[in-house]
């Protein structure tokens, strides 16, 4: 990779030194502190890495959902101006598949991550961690994936088994990533 890069570019000397070792990295930009990385490091992986401290129940989530989500997603997540969140299980091979959190999403972590980063649409990032757990719990509960009284939390969210967990087939070339670095 590196060799290709150098072959393809005519570079000034300052750039050559900048890329020659990481000790030169400060020539561009500045070091990021762990504290400021934490401000932006919002992604959550399927293994639960990235989940913040906190938790919530469907009952709490329902209150938040009705106030901030139902206008677009419908009462009980049945769909409205925007995506339906509930039902559709058993339709994926039919002529009219209904893709919802319950029928299609393979990871509960993706749901938490998406609500945290993108919802509610007019004011993304406005929910607290506890509120995000609660809304996630409500949507999972509506789909009968977790019991109504389940306390969803940092400790157990990654263990939630989604109905369509085995429903995805990645392209072979991206199952094991290799490169010549």
């Amino acid at each position: 990779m590196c060799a290709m890069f150098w072959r393809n570019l005519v570079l000034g000397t300052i750039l050559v030194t900048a890329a020659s070792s990481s000790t030169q990295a400060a020539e561009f930009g500045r070091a990021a502190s762990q504290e400021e990385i934490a401000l932006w490091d919002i992604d959550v992986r399927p293994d639960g890495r990235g989940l913040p401290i906190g938790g919530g129940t469907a009952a709490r989530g329902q209150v938040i959902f009705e106030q901030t989500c139902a206008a677009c997603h419908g009462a009980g997540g049945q769909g409205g101006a925007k995506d339906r969140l509930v039902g559709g299980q058993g339709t994926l091979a039919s002529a009219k598949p209904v893709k919802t959190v319950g029928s299609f999403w393979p990871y509960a972590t993706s749901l938490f991550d998406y609500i945290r980063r993108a919802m509610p649409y007019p004011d993304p990032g406005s929910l607290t961690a506890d509120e995000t757990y609660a809304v996630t719990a409500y949507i999972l509960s509506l789909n009968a994936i977790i019991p109504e009284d389940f306390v969803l939390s940092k400790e157990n969210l990654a263990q939630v088994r989604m109905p369509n967990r085995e429903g995805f087939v990645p392209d072979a070339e991206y199952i094991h990533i290799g490169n010549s670095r």
Partner: protein
Amino acid sequence: MLKRFSDPDRLSRRRFLTATAATAATAGGVIAAPATADTLADVPPRGPGDDLGAYSPRSPYVQIARIPEAAPGQRNVDPSAAINSKSPLDKFVGTITPTDLHYERSHSGVPNLDPSKHRVLVHGMVKQPLVLTLEDLRAMPSISRIAFLECTGNGWENWKSAPDTVTVQNTHGLVSTHEWTGVPLSFLIDLVGVDRASTWMLAEGDDGAAVARSIPLTDEIIAEGILAYGQNGEPLRPAHGFPVRLFLPGFEGNLNIKWLRRLKFGDQPFMTRWETARYTQLRPDGKARQFQLKQDVNSVITAPSGMMRIKPGSNRITGLAWSGHGRITRVEVSADGGATWAVAALTGPVLPKAQARFQHDWVWDGRPTKIVSRSTDEQGNVQPDRASFIAQVGTNALFHYSAQQTWGIDEAGHVRNVLA
């Protein structure tokens, strides 16, 4: 300000005449209004023109615009309801898309970011996490590359039952070609000292949805990826990611994260909503194909195309071909619904992972027929006909439609969309 000396009547007459002439000046035998300047004596006299300005506006006689859509078939909607805006392929010539007509697709509108306050955080499995400003990026070595960008939803009109009245803008307007300028991804990877065990990179935007995708660190992506801050020689437009976006030639549009604010290096895909619940393709068996990241070999005839009308005799067929797998090596055109094929001329430039223009001279005998193109890329991939394509992937995939596009022509010369 200096005003023109020409009299208003003469000017308006000149404009009127030019307008009708411009409407008629379309390719081949496409039927349009007859020109009113029948003899040279009718051509308006010359005279002083308009003032020069800071920008060069289009001629008032040129009608060319994108079409915003809310969903397949929901066209010309209120901008607040639009989720994409399609390029008028039928009105383009050459291969480079005009900057303001490059297609748009966004998930939470178009943020107007102040570059002085924009930052790119690079972290994760790196020796030195960095915060970069736009100035930092512009101080780094840059490359420029002409390449296409295509929304994975391009062609979605035609999965099941598209109306016969759609135009090529409706069916294929989510692909465009620009020159992109920015910092090679490989330079940044070396700069921060990415751990050799890192295999995936999360790219995240600064839009309301913070759109985020996992990018596999293959040799191809490392060698060709760009943190782009320029398009067609100028800073990115806000709609296309100002002040900086990721650009990955040949890969599905959604991976090319606009308004880039964060790159995080890891050792597995992060499984965001967009790479699980959204941009995956349902197969007939109900399983979904995931990480189908390349845009496959594709082509479409842009003239004559949907809702145009031709007349018998000499017609020039022209269109665009592209492939995420490399350079287009061959485009064939059939004027009998796929029974026989002729090799079309590639007019050049023909660049890897860029749109190439083809043309083919054809004499229409006036009988109803179907015209269709198929492309081949340098890796030998051949664009499939629709029946073979559907037989393989079904009709529920929603994304990555790349079958041949057939246009039917009736006895009166009307050109219409045909699912064949």
